[in-house]
């Protein structure tokens, strides 16, 4: 196997180490002044140079010809380390050797003097995986090791270490590699490896790497595997799934035009051709985001060619901004992990977007906590006794914790959206009273006033107090609640039900002891009423 770039280009001196100047300066000064300590702790995210620094430090400490704190990389000690054959550099994989026996063994061996180097260096990598007893067994040794020993502990998860371990080490926090440092390093590698790539393309890699140099080097390596030695921005955006292709544009257009059949066709063709739907969805969301930006007058923030900009402008003229924002949210929240139903999930989002259906993963669902509502009908079922209670209870508890939270409600979007959102918050806030408004039709939803039409007034009036209190809490200030009678009632969530739910029936339901019990004990909500018998 040829060596991966990230191994081939592992830093061999402090100077080569990218983006960790505070750490390297301190260490170099300490070595130059001969003031190294006996235990170091290196922590930081993946690919930021912890293990590399450990090895460089081991070299610098034992180098026969150190140069201002840097290892010379020429003497026999340095070479032995570089070739991985210095007996006195012991690298321990704490994740594979995590028990107390291994640490006891280590304690025994620590006592022996180094064979050729000045000091024995123990690099304990992934140290967070040691067991509790192993940590405890390490404590004494770590605090007062023999003169000839240096410990270097490295981990990505410092928070898992006992405080007693951390306090015995000199701690260095490795930061994510700054973009310019990563870029410079990639540039060096590319030149040495004969890879033709410009800074813009390298920038794409660096942004995708999340501050991990290993990830960046790996992406470069991967790009060369995919596209050969000559790489463009387009290659990289394609590899990373950032580009937006014709299919994504066609689908977004179908969504904005509410052309369901055309949209279904696009999804079907994409799936049939083996397109990765998760990546496809990322493209859709990115494109929708561009539409939103363009509509907001910030089109110049988009990284795109003129032709692409033009396409986005065309899309932007096809739907009003609020709807695009809603759709963007809907698609960005899609969970396409269950691959066997990924196409279905995408199609349903498409259906909802084209029909303005309310099945979105709306904020309403979020407010109720992660437990989806249990339909009331099911609570009467005979199986409650065999464990239902124990499982359902967290729902009620969680709801109480999460419901009142959230920022003050600010009406936005069209009337139906505002009411849907408000109703969801009401339901979360006041699960006992809110359902009387299930079938209410909004007339006005604003900062001052909420005007609703219902079929029968009495049930609402009877709950006026809790409802007004809930509204005040949701808006952050008192709000006038006006309820009037009228027909043509449409429901926000029950609109798909075959039979509309009149309030008096809701009233009867809500006050029935069974339903009360279900709502209180299981956190059930009334999703709708269906006549079953």
């Amino acid at each position, binding site marked *: 196997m040829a060596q*991966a770039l990230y191994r081939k280009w592992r830093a061999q001196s402090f100077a080569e180490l990218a983006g960790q100047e505070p750490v390297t300066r301190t260490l170099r000064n300490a070595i130059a002044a001969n003031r190294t300590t006996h235990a170091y702790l290196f922590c930081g995210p993946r690919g930021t140079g912890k293990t590399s620094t450990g090895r460089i430090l081991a070299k610098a400490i034992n180098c026969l010809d150190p140069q201002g704190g840097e290892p010379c990389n020429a003497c026999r000690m340095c070479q032995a380390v570089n070739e991985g054959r210095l007996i006195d550099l012991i690298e321990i994989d704490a*994740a*594979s050797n995590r028990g107390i026996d291994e640490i006891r063994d280590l304690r025994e061996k620590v006592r022996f003097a180094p064979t050729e180097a000045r000091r024995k260096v123990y690099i304990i990598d992934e140290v*967070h995986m040691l067991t509790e007893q192993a940590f405890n067994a390490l404590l004494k040794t770590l605090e007062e090791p023999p003169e000839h020993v240096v410990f270097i502990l490295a981990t990505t998860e410092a928070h898992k270490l006992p405080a007693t371990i951390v306090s015995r080490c000199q701690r260095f926090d490795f930061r994510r590699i700054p973009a310019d440092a990563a870029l410079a390093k990639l540039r060096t590698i590319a030149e040495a490896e004969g890879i033709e790539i410009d800074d813009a393309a390298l920038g794409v890699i660096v942004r995708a790497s999340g501050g991990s140099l290993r990830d960046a080097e790996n992406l470069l390596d991967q790009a060369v*595997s*995919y596209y050969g030695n000559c790489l463009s921005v387009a290659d990289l955006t394609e590899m990373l799934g950032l580009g937006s292709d014709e299919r994504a544009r066609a689908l977004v257009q179908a969504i904005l035009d509410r052309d369901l059949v055309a949209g279904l066709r696009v999804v079907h063709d994409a799936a049939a051709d083996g397109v990765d739907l998760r990546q496809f969805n990322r493209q859709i969301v990115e494109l929708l985001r561009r539409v939103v930006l363009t509509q907001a007058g910030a089109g110049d923030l988009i990284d795109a060619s003129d032709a692409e900009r033009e396409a986005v402008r065309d899309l932007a003229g096809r739907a009003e901004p609020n709807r695009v924002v809603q759709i963007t949210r809907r698609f960005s929240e899609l969970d396409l992990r269950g691959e066997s139903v990924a196409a*279905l999930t995408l199609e349903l989002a498409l259906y909802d977007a084209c029909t303005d*259906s309310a099945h979105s993963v709306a904020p309403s669902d979020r407010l109720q906590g992660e437990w*989806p509502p249990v339909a009331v009908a099911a609570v009467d079922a005979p199986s409650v006794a065999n464990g239902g209670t124990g499982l359902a209870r967290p729902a009620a508890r969680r709801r109480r914790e999460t419901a009142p939270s959230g920022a003050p409600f600010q009406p936005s979007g069209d009337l139906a959206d505002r009411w849907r959102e408000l109703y969801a918050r009401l339901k979360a806030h006041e699960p006992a009273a809110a359902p009387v408004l299930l079938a209410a039709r909004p007339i006005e939803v604003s900062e001052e006033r909420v005007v609703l039409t219902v079929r029968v007034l009495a049930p609402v009036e009877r709950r006026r107090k809790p409802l007004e209190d809930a509204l005040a809490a949701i808006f952050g200030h008192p709000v006038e609640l006006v309820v009037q009678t009228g027909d043509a009632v449409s429901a926000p969530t029950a609109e798909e039900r075959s039979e509309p739910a009149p309030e008096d029936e809701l009233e009867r339901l809500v006050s029935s002891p069974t339903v009360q019990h279900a709502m209180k004990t299981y956190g059930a909500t009334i999703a709708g009423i269906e006549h*079953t018998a």
Partner: protein
Amino acid sequence: MPTSWGIVGQRAAVALLERSIREGRLRHAYLFTGPPQVGKGTLARALAQAVNCEQADPPCGECRSCRRIARGLHPDVVTLRLLADEKSESGRLRKNIGIAQVQDLHAELALQPYEGRSRVVIVDGTERLSSEASNALLKTLEEPPEKALLILVTSEPDRLLPTIRSRCQRLDLRLVPEAEIAAELERRGADPAQSALLARLAAGQIGWAIEALGDPDRLAVRSDRLDALRAALDERTIARLDRAGKLAARFAASREDVYATLALWQGWLRDVLVVASGGQFDLLLNPDRQAEIESAARAISPAATRAAIEALRRCREQLEANVNARLALEAALLDLPRLGSPARRDASSPSPRS
């Protein structure tokens, strides 16, 4: 001249690996990702063959080495996967790949290859590595011994440690185009009509199609499940509760069974929605059920169909969250629309055809 390594679909992935081998750019650690049953494991084995093949044009599939790898007998190709749980009598698998398995692997990797040129480790279902096992793999994954090649296979890369992902070269496998699945099925001796149906039902998962070809029961099971949904739509509350009870009992025996049923039902309802929205025939997931789907599309409103799909989706979510299975299934079944008895339907909403 690119070959296909005997893999259906996945041309880009095969071409990449082939070029990497030819140019001496093969890396020590790969992460194969992609939906279930699209050929990740098959590709991993093909790569193992390619690096160990004795012929000039690897993987030949004919030489001793290739054949032994295909049969899982090659001493230098090790596969880490879920082991059987000794504690369970029913032969269930353990929940994860434990650290002991990874430690055994370390011991083995320390040895030189027995006969092949490379030692290949295939981790099948990498997302099943326990947290300890994942961590124990990190050092090896970054700097394995010479001549070692690690291939991590997963359908859920997001569940892996970022430190694992960061050490591998990633190769995303895709759903296999329908036409290629159909062609492969025909090559395996299926008649065109059957190939077309299975290729459609497979939805890109060629593994499923090939299994279904060899096992007619699969199609029968699917038919039964769809019949059950069709029957449930005509049923009243009591019968539906009864049905939910039976499903819950099945859930206790095999979760996957019930998940598959729910997915199938969603697909059928989705077809109803597609037809109701004016979609063409070739968009259907269940083309063999066209007549029944069309009649349902006339009887159920799109909104009700959509709500039913949502109910099934929610049900699956609840089951995964370990909500009482019977409650969740009852709620879902009661949320399905009712078609009513044929006589009543005719009386209340005369459909164009009847």
